[in-house]
């Protein structure tokens, strides 16, 4: 049984995704129990895989016993073991959180379907992370994306359908580019296994076909991770999706995209090819710096909290790409850390905001006056997340920013420090606006803006326990891994050493 764990991680949520809507017909709450149990099992499985990887170095699982490169191989090393844990953890946390939240934000009849699609989404994300076959990666990418479009469109607000449609058009173009990239690689190598490709490609780096393939991969995956000029689909999708969906999407979808980006760039291709072959590092650096600054500037301009967090995500994607584009050990280590850290802090923030939406149905920052007194625990979690985003020491945000800054110095690019400082400053500005409203502004009952879908309670309590607990857990982890950073650090270091070889 244990040696089949890699495939069980995929098959279990995939089959449960079919069972869930059926079980929901018997009793609605059953579907929620299934999701929580399945995601908990996946999280346990991912931890077990991680511990095996820590002992043995890597796990190679052959689907159907077919030897790679002919068969599909699931290859787990330090890098994907730890991204897998992250995805499974967030999926579990958000599943627990979702019950109360989606009951209010989604039509009751659709709830079992929602949970089914949620599991499909998780299947897709874990599949992307676990697979060692590049065509398999494309298929899982599409499973995750298609489930993602449905999860956004399921929200009651009518803007959600339009946001979802735009995401679908952009996402399909991106995924089709990835498919074309795979086709071009197959054309010259005749292989689809990533490890096999990595061995065959160096001899062909001069080939125009390989360079074209890389261009398709780079653009396609950049759309998926919403790198700045290609970010258009992201803000509306995150803003109008149900709270639980915003949380899991912001915390995992773009992170897994970034993982795929790193995988393709460093495992399938080599860092050497990127630097000397096509000089990608300078181009990527430019877009990363642009994303960091523009994301932060656009976030400052927002009045809706979810939209503000969405734009801030675009800036944070810039950080991840920045570390990659430096192409040194510390930079990639910083990027990998930031993948995990950003997932934790954005998760916390979106979960806390979901609590506000649940109780009050407001998302306009102006209306947050006096919330610090009304919903103390949610707001404390929000503040921890916000401090972490700014990069205050003792939070996770500080650790990854520190590593990125050191990497920039190692690469001799001191001017990147200015970009980092400036964006931290802007982050402080837009989060301070929220915190200032929450704690330091007296409540003005006459001015509550309209357009809130959910009926507001006149005297709100803090969010329900089922929603509060996941928020607290992620917030505590934000601080915990900020103080005891050695575990994620050592994992990220081992992973980046594999990547740079």
């Amino acid at each position, binding site marked *: 049984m244990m040696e089949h764990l890699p495939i069980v991680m995929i098959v279990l949520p995939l089959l449960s995704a079919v069972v869930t809507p059926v079980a929901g017909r018997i009793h609605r709450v059953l579907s929620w129990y299934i999701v929580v149990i399945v995601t908990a099992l996946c999280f346990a499985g991912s931890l077990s895989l991680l511990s095996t990887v820590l002992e043995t170095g890597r796990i190679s699982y052959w689907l159907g016993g077919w030897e790679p490169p002919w068969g599909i191989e699931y290859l787990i090393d330090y890098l994907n073991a730890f991204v897998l844990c992250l995805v499974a953890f967030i999926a579990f946390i958000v599943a627990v959180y979702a019950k109360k939240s989606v009951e209010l934000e989604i039509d009751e009849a659709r709830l079992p379907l929602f949970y089914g699609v949620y599991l499909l989404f998780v299947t897709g994300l874990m599949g992307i992370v676990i697979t060692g076959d590049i065509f398999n990666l494309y298929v899982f990418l599409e499973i995750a994306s298609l489930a993602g479009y449905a999860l956004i469109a399921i929200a009651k607000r009518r803007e959600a359908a*339009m946001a979802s*449609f735009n995401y679908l058009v952009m996402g399909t*173009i991106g995924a*089709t580019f990835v*498919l074309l990239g795979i*086709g071009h690689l*197959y054309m010259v190598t005749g292989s689809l296994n990533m490890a096999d490709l990595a061995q065959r490609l160096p001899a062909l780096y001069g080939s125009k076909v390989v360079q074209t393939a890389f261009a398709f991969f780079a653009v396609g995956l950049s759309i998926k991770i919403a790198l700045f000029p290609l970010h258009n689909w992201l803000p509306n999708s995150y803003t109008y999706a149900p709270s639980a969906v915003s949380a899991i999407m912001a915390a995992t979808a773009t992170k897994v995209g970034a993982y795929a980006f790193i995988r393709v760039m460093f495992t399938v291709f080599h860092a050497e090819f990127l630097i000397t072959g096509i000089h990608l590092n300078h181009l990527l650096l430019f877009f990363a710096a642009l994303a960091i600054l523009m994301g932060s500037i656009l976030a400052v301009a927002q009045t809706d909290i979810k939209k503000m967090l969405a734009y801030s995500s675009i800036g944070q994607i810039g950080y991840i790409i920045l570390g990659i584009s430096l192409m040194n050990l510390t930079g990639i280590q910083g990027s990998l850390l930031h993948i995990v850290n950003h997932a934790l802090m954005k998760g916390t923030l979106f979960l806390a905001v979901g609590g506000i939406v649940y109780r009050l149905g407001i998302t306009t920052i102006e209306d947050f006056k006096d919330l610090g007194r009304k919903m103390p625990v949610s707001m404390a979690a929000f503040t921890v997340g916000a401090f972490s985003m700014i990069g205050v020491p003792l939070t996770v945000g500080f650790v990854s920013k520190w590593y990125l800054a050191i990497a920039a110095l190692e690469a001799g690019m001191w001017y990147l420090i200015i970009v980092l400082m400036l964006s931290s400053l802007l982050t402080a500005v837009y989060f301070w606006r929220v915190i200032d409203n929450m704690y330091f502004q007296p409540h003005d009952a006459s001015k509550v803006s309209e357009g809130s879908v959910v009926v507001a309670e006149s005297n709100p309590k803090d969010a329900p326990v089922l929603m509060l607990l996941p928020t607290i857990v992620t917030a505590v982890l934000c601080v915990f891994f900020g103080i005891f950073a050695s575990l994620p650090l050592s994992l990220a270091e081992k992973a980046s050493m594999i990547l740079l070889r």
Partner: protein
Amino acid sequence: MTEFISAKYNYWIYIFLMMVGFYAAIAKRNLVKKVIGLNIFQTAVFLFYISIAKVKGGTEPIWMEGNPVYTNPLPHVLILTAIVVAVSTTAVALAIIILIMKQFGTVEEDKILKLLEPHD
């Protein structure tokens, strides 16, 4: 030059189709037309995959005595998967369009954006 075009005409068709689909998906204002554009875009990629599978003088990939040259069957199988993906994408897209139609009463992007504008 003519040989450059005629010898690889299937690739030119694929590029042409892909650009047609890409243009429609981006520039058309009607949501259904956008989906049609996406379909053409994806179909073009299928043609590309089928083209790279062709081996000159190759037969069907069935074991036959005395004729070892056969067309590579793998891209065909890959494209079967991609066709399934394209069909599901179309299904999801059309479902979302039905939702949009119900909520806005139109599938013209301009009119929808006008409806979404905040009116004070």
